């Protein structure tokens, strides 16, 4: 754990956690993909399942081979949204500070950099690597009021696994958490 993550881990117990009653869960009738969303500390945090076939179709259309895309498509991928709706200032985050909690144990999702290293090792063409890099949820960002992004986030968990997402961000030097509980990885 690097210094900043350690500092966050020490700070977090002093902060208010997300109110679980504010969490919503819905399922798209056509695709079967589920969405979990919470509005907390003036921000919206949302995860929507990206089914393995959806990830395969998207990346094969951008230069990945069927073999290359498989480790990512089956790595429990979510469309992720974070939006500053009404935070008391600019909302900044680093994806490296986000964790998933499985059966009480916290772990970090694989980094975007680790995926990029894999694509380089496998010799993927540059357009495919660029599309992958920028289709991911930003590795760091700062949102003023009304600003937001959506992008892919792979948790690295097995298909069907249940977990909590612990997202962390800073507003005016104070650390906040948004927690989505009992989120389920898409099945194969």
């Amino acid at each position, binding site marked *: 754990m690097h210094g900043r993550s350690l500092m966050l881990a020490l700070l977090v117990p002093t902060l208010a956690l997300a109110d679980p009653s504010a969490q919503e869960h*819905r399922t*798209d009738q*056509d*695709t079967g*993909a589920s*969405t979990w969303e919470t509005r907390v500390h003036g921000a*919206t945090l*949302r995860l*929507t399942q*990206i*089914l393995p*076939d*959806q*990830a395969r*179709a*998207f990346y*094969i*259309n*951008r230069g990945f081979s069927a073999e290359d895309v498989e480790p990512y498509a089956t790595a429990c991928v979510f*469309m992720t*949204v974070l*939006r500053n709706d009404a935070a008391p200032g600019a909302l900044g985050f680093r994806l490296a500070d986000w964790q998933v909690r499985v059966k009480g144990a916290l772990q970090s999702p694989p980094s975007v950099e680790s995926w990029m290293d894999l694509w380089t090792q496998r010799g993927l063409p*540059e*357009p495919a690597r*660029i*599309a992958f*890099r*920028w*289709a991911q*949820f*930003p*590795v*760091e*960002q*700062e*949102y*003023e*009021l*009304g*600003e*937001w*992004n*959506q*992008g*892919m986030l792979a948790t690295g968990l097995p298909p069907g696994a249940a977990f909590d997402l612990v997202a962390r961000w800073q507003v005016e030097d104070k650390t906040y958490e948004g927690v989505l509980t009992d989120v389920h990885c898409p099945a194969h």
Partner: protein
Amino acid sequence: MCIARLIKLCSLVFFLALALPAQAEDLPPLTHALTPISKPFAAPALKLPDLDGKLHDLADLKGKVVLINFWATWCPPCRREMPSLERLRQRLGDQGLAVVAVDVGEDADTVFSFTGQLEPAPAFPLLLDRDSKAMQAWKVKGLPTTFVVDPQGRVAYRAVGGREFDHDALVQQLRSLLPMK
């Protein structure tokens, strides 16, 4: 499964191959304002080819207000906001606003096949940042990201995430910068 639902599902799978998966009825709202830059700074250089290979240089637009939109065809909010960029150009183009869109990492055929379906179709330059170097020079961290450069060549506003660019509140912000208000 009824035929209508099957057709809808097939259409959705086809769309997902083209764009990042996102359920159309469940997308975050587009924002109606730009973020002012507290300390405007000199705009980085931007010199890129358009779909026909013609070079465009931001330096040639000095004296105008220039809205620069970094985007990609696979990015859902980018796709949603693109028609509003052309509507904005139609509202303010003759008052000193120039609109430029910079596609990241894709080729001319891919961009053309998407923009050809839009109504209204973009009449502003669509530039290609094939190696994403321009995006990195502008310190873009996620798509879409938009910058507004004032007539003195300084970045005065930014927008991270999708916008409704022809919303009255946003148009009002841009009017305050225009040389011909």
